[in-house]
C-alpha cells in the first residue's frame, strides 16, 4: 500500500512537472501560434541554471553556489527567459518557420554545450548534489515525496492561474488575434513582433520553471535529460489534450505520461530480451504516430479550444484544476 502511494506520488510529481512545461508550450503554440522546436532547451536551461546556482559545489566545476532554493529556482527561470529572448529577437520578425528551425538548433547547441563544457556542466557525467527543498524537515522519503508533490502542485496552480488570467484578458485576445490574422491585429494598433516576443519569453520561462523543479526533485542533471525526446513528449501532450485550452494541456500531460510509462513498463516486462535494446525505438515510433495521427484525424485535440463569442459578458473562469 505504501509502495503504491509512493509510486503514485512519484508519477504525479513527474506528470505535474511536465504539465507545467505543457502549459508553457500552450502559451506558445495554443494561444500565440509560435512553433517551439526546442522545448527541451528551455527546460534544460532552467534545470542546469538552478543546479549551477543552487547545487552543492563539486571539485573542478564552476558553480554549485548553494543558493537557497527560491533563488536558484528564480535564476533558472530567468536564464530560460534570457535564452528565449535571444532566440526570439532574432527570429520572430521573420518567416514563421525560422523560429522552428532556430529553437530546434538551440536545443542541439545546448546539448552539445552540456556534453562538452565539463568545467560548467560536468560533461556527460552531469552534475549532482542539490540541497532539496524540505530536506531537513523529515527523514521519511514518502513524506518528503508528498511534500515535494505539494510544491509542484502549488507551482502548477500558480502557472495555471496566471495563464488563465493572461489569456482571458485583452492581452490574451491580442495574442489570439495575431495568431489568426496578423495584418488585422496590426491594423488595430497591436505590435505583433513585440507581443510574440513577450509570449515566447513568458512561455519559455514557464518551461524553465519546470526544469528547475525537475532538478530540485532528482538532485541530478546530465545531457541525457536534454535529449530531444522530451520536446516530442510535450508536443504530443499538447496536441492530444487540445492546443489553446489549458485544461486540455493538463489532460494531455496526464494521459501521455501515463501511456509513456505504461508502454515502457509493458515493453520491459513482456518484450523478448533481445528486443529490450530497441524498446526506446518502439516508444519513439508510438509517440511519432500519436503526433501524426492526432494531426490527421483530430487536430483540435480531445478538449478543443473554446472561444467565447459573447464579448459583453465576462468570461467564465474555470476553477483551478491544480
Amino acid at each position, binding site marked *: 500500500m505504501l509502495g503504491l502511494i509512493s509510486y503514485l506520488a512519484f508519477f504525479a510529481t513527474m506528470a505535474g512537472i511536465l504539465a507545467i512545461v505543457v502549459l508553457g508550450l500552450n502559451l506558445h*503554440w495554443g494561444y500565440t*501560434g509560435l*512553433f517551439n*522546436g526546442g522545448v527541451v532547451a528551455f527546460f534544460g536551461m532552467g534545470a542546469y541554471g538552478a543546479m549551477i546556482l543552487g547545487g552543492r559545489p563539486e571539485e573542478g566545476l564552476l558553480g554549485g553556489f548553494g543558493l537557497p532554493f527560491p533563488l536558484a529556482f528564480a535564476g533558472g527561470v530567468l536564464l530560460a527567459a534570457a535564452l528565449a529572448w535571444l532566440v526570439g529577437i*532574432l*527570429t520572430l*520578425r*521573420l*518567416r*514563421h*518557420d*525560422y523560429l*522552428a*528551425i*532556430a529553437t*530546434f*538548433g*538551440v536545443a*542541439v*547547441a545546448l*546539448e*552539445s*554545450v552540456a*556534453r*562538452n563544457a565539463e568545467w560548467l556542466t560536468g560533461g556527460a557525467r552531469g552534475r549532482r548534489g542539490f540541497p532539496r527543498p524540505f530536506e531537513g524537515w523529515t527523514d521519511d522519503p514518502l513524506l518528503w515525496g508528498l511534500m515535494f508533490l505539494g510544491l509542484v502542485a502549488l507551482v502548477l496552480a500558480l502557472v495555471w492561474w496566471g495563464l488563465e488570467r493572461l489569456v482571458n484578458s485583452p492581452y490574451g485576445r491580442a495574442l489570439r488575434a495575431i495568431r489568426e490574422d496578423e495584418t488585422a491585429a496590426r491594423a488595430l494598433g497591436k505590435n505583433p513582433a513585440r507581443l510574440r516576443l513577450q509570449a515566447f519569453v513568458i512561455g519559455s520561462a514557464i518551461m524553465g520553471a519546470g526544469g528547475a523543479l525537475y532538478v530540485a526533485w532528482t538532485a541530478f542533471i546530465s545531457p541525457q535529460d536534454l535529449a530531444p525526446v522530451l520536446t*516530442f513528449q510535450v*508536443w504530443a501532450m499538447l*496536441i492530444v489534450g487540445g492546443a489553446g485550452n489549458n485544461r486540455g494541456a493538463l489532460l494531455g500531460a496526464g494521459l501521455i505520461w501515463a501511456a509513456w510509462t505504461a508502454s515502457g513498463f509493458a515493453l520491459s516486462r513482456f518484450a523478448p530480451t533481445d528486443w529490450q*535494446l*530497441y524498446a526506446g*525505438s*518502439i516508444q*519513439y*515510433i508510438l*509517440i*511519432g*504516430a*500519436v*503526433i*501524426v495521427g492526432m*494531426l*490527421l484525424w483530430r*487536430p483540435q485535440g480531445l478538449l478543443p479550444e473554446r472561444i467565447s463569442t459573447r464579448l459583453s459578458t465576462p468570461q467564465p473562469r474555470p476553477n483551478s484544476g491544480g
Partner: protein
Amino acid sequence: MIQHLIDGVLTGAIISLGAIGLTMVMHILRFANFAYAELLAIGAYAALVFDALFAALVPALAVKFAPLTLTGTLALATLVAMGVAGLSALVLDRLVFRRIRDRAGPLSMVFASFGVALIIRNLIVLAFGLHPQLYSPDIAFAVVLSFDPLVLIKPDQVFVLVAALALMLGFHLVLTRTTFGFALRAVAENPSLAQVNGVNLSAMIAAVWLIGGALAAAAGVFYALTNQLNPMIGHVFLLPVFAATIVGGIGSVYGAVAGGFIVGIASGLSLMVLPSGYTPAMPFLIILAVLLIRPQGLFGEAES
C-alpha cells in the same frame, strides 16, 4: 588547416545536395520539413539493401573500381536508392503532408514532419539495428598528399566530390535548358502566377519531391561511403541542411548549394579552435549569424 578545409569541402558537397530539395520544398509548400533529412538515411540504407541484392544476383558486378571501394553493384544500387527515396518523399506527401495541408496551417505540417521523422528514424533502427555499418568491409586507404602539413585524402572522397558536383551541374542544366526546368523555376518563384500560366502545380510539387528525394539519397550514400552508415544520419544532417537553406536564402537552389559549402567548410574549420564535440552546434551559430546580418540569406529576397 588544409586537411580541415578539404574535409569541410567534402561535407559541404553532401550538405549542398541534401539542401537543394529542402529549399524548394520550403519555398513552394511554405513549411520547414523536419522529416526531410531522413531521406538521406532512407537513401543510404536502400543502397545497402540493393547493393547486397545485386551482388547476390550478379556477382560479376561486385567488383571494385580501384582505387575506390565503390563497386559496380553499389553504383547501381545508388541509382535505385535515389528512386526509392524520391518515391518515399512523394508517398509521405500524399499520406501525411498533403492531407494536413488541405486542412490546417503550415505549422501543423512542421509538427507532423517531426512525427514522421521520429517514425522513419526508429523504423530504420528496428530494421537495421543501432550499430554502424559499412558498404564494403575493405579498408579504404588514404593517399598522403603532403607530409608537412599532413594532408590525407581517400580516393572515395575525390569520387564523392566529383559525383556531387556532376549531379548539381546536371540539375543546373535541367533548370536552365529545359521547359520542365523553366516550369520548376516558375513554381519556385511564384506558385500562383505559374499556375495561371498553365503550369500544373501538383505535378510540379510531385517533381520537386522526386528530385529532392533523389538528391538527398545520393547525399546519404556519399556520406555513408566516406564515413559510415548509422540510423542517426538524418538527425545529424538535419540542422546542417536547414542552415544551408537559410544561409543561401529559402527558395534559392544556387543559394542552397553555396550555403551547403559554407556550412561544411565553416564546420570543418571550426575544428581548429573548438573541440569536435561542439561541431553539432556550428550550424546553429551560422544560422544565428545569418539572421543577425542578412536574414533573407545570400540569394534570398527580403520579405515584406
